[in-house]
């Protein structure tokens, strides 16, 4: 392997830490130590993390204001709900246990690919625009997806041949109960870790540099040989893939789906997470996703006032900390470890702050 020793060490530390974390989650999940309320928050946090980090790709790193992310999530959730329903009704992998897991994995992959495909289709016309115009058109596309799904007969009611055009899909082939959700915590955590890792390694590669250069200066970027249109559409579609995967997890989380849950407000919700955590900080997106999801659940009874609180918080944010909670700072476990080992440690470096 050509991996430098320092990076190898860092990778080992990260893998070890994540394994311990996932081990704890697995233990808690399989022993059913947590209440279904906490398990629900865990699932929603995972969905929030995937949605916020992937939206950060377009909004934070590529620098394009996209506001229709929940639309891709909607595609992901409905496609996996209907696919799994079709599988159950056809008797393919219809059982529980391992068969259920296999069905879930197939749905995750399928919904990711489908959402990615729609990402390309939406991205090609939409990304010709910039700034507010792009925000409005992506918002529009998100709503179009929602309205179209509401109008498809087989995507509502009891689904497929028993369906009717309706905003609610009462039956999904996934729809895990509380016990299953608890058991699957480990798996959902793993999927989240994989998604975030892939996004992170993507950003720290030549592709990530190309994307960030587009954010900084489009003209200079194309004058440096970067194919702007290609990178914009690819990144947009790439982030849509993860929204599709998040949607698939969402479909597994509830026994029925309602398009209203993934409309404009949901897009804004994930957008707030990105802005709150810091545009261009994956760590920030993760922290904000967990924080805001938990807060939402804690403040369920004040639901109507949520948007009011959000807007006030955002206004203060823009005034006092316009770059978001963490700016573009990324937490690095390896660096923290070497920092904690004290000034004697050879590889001690000042914390990586990419201002």
């Amino acid at each position, binding site marked *: 392997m050509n991996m430098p020793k320092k990076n190898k060490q860092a990778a080992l530390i990260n893998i070890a830490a994540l394994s311990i974390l996932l081990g704890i989650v697995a233990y808690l999940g399989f022993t059913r130590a947590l209440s279904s309320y906490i398990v629900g928050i865990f699932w929603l946090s995972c969905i929030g993390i995937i949605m916020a980090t992937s939206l950060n790709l377009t909004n934070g790193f590529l620098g394009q204001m996209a506001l229709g992310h929940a639309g891709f999530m909607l595609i992901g959730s409905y496609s996996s709900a209907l696919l799994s329903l079709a599988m159950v009704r056809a008797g393919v992998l219809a059982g529980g246990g391992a068969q259920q897991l296999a069905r879930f994995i197939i749905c995750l992959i399928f919904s990711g690919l489908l959402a990615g495909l729609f990402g390309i289709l939406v991205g090609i016309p939409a990304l010709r625009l910039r700034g507010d115009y792009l925000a409005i058109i992506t918002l529009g596309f998100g709503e179009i997806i929602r309205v179209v799904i509401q109008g498809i007969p087989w995507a509502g009611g009891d689904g497929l041949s028993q369906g009717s055009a309706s905003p609610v899909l009462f039956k999904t082939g996934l729809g895990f109960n509380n016990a299953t959700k608890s058991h699957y915590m480990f798996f959902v955590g793993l999927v989240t870790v994989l998604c975030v890792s892939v996004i992170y390694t993507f950003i720290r*590669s030549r592709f990530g540099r190309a994307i960030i250069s587009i954010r900084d200066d489009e003209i200079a970027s194309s004058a440096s*040989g970067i194919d702007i249109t290609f990178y914009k559409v690819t990144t947009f579609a790439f982030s849509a893939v993860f929204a599709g995967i998040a949607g698939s997890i969402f479909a597994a989380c509830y026994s029925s789906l309602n398009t209203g849950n993934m409309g404009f407000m949901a897009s804004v919700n994930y957008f707030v997470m990105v802005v709150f955590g810091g545009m261009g900080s994956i760590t920030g997106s993760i922290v904000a996703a967990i924080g805001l999801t938990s807060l939402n659940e804690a403040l369920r009874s004040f639901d109507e006032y949520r948007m009011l609180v959000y807007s006030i918080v955002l206004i203060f944010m823009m005034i006092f900390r316009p770059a978001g909670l963490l700016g*573009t700072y990324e937490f690095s476990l390896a660096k923290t470890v070497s920092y904690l080992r004290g000034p004697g440690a050879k590889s001690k470096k000042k914390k990586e702050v990419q201002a």
Partner: protein
Amino acid sequence: METGTMLCTDRETPLIKVSHLGITFGGLRAVNDFSLEMGENELVGLIGPNGAGKTTVFNLLTGVYTPSEGDYYFCGQRMNGRKTHEIVQSGIARTFQNIRLFSKMTVLDNVKVAMNPHYEYNVFAAMLRTGKYWASEAENDKKSRELLEIFNLQDKADAVAENLPYGQQRKLEIARALATDMKLLLLDEPAAGMNPTETEELLECIRIIRQRFNISILLIEHDMSLVMKICERIIVIDYGTTIARGTPEEISQDPRVIAAYLGTDD
């Protein structure tokens, strides 16, 4: 860093051949009948009063605008209507009149962006961090640092680009253009806003890169002493039309050039 394989091995073909290039914006003819031929390792100056259309020529050559008439060939290939990034990848790179760096990225990353096509791994290798990823990253990291060394920027490699002093930002922009592995460099007023010391350094820099990378340079400049010092040939344009071409001595005595710059009596 060595220059890549030269496309124009054929000595008969000029590096760039521009014939009767022109562009019209609405009713305005910004550039009219612009012709140019440059061989390898030549340094040509493009001068003219403000608003004469010099930068427009650059924008035409780099594909920002599509010419309304005329053709231009680079290494024998017709370049009309190609996209900017394609033109850059085939070997024409430029700098900007008002510096355009990736201001929030580090100095090193600025150069690495321009090296993007030289990286040899695909998106899956990037996400899985395969051996190819590490090898290619290490190789290009080394190349980028070597390039920064030429411009004496190696100590600033990890600094954020926007924090560099003005003169070094100019240099970084040239370094970034060089990183695209080009054969023709278009410099748009590189000495603008520089003090005499910085200008002198820049001159030295241009000499070095021209020798070391065996490239041709087309230079827009207002600083006449700089132009006269380093250019072998000069083209003067005014109101989009070429009014004179020749050696620096010929140009400095050409009555039309003097008229364009200083005005005439009548």
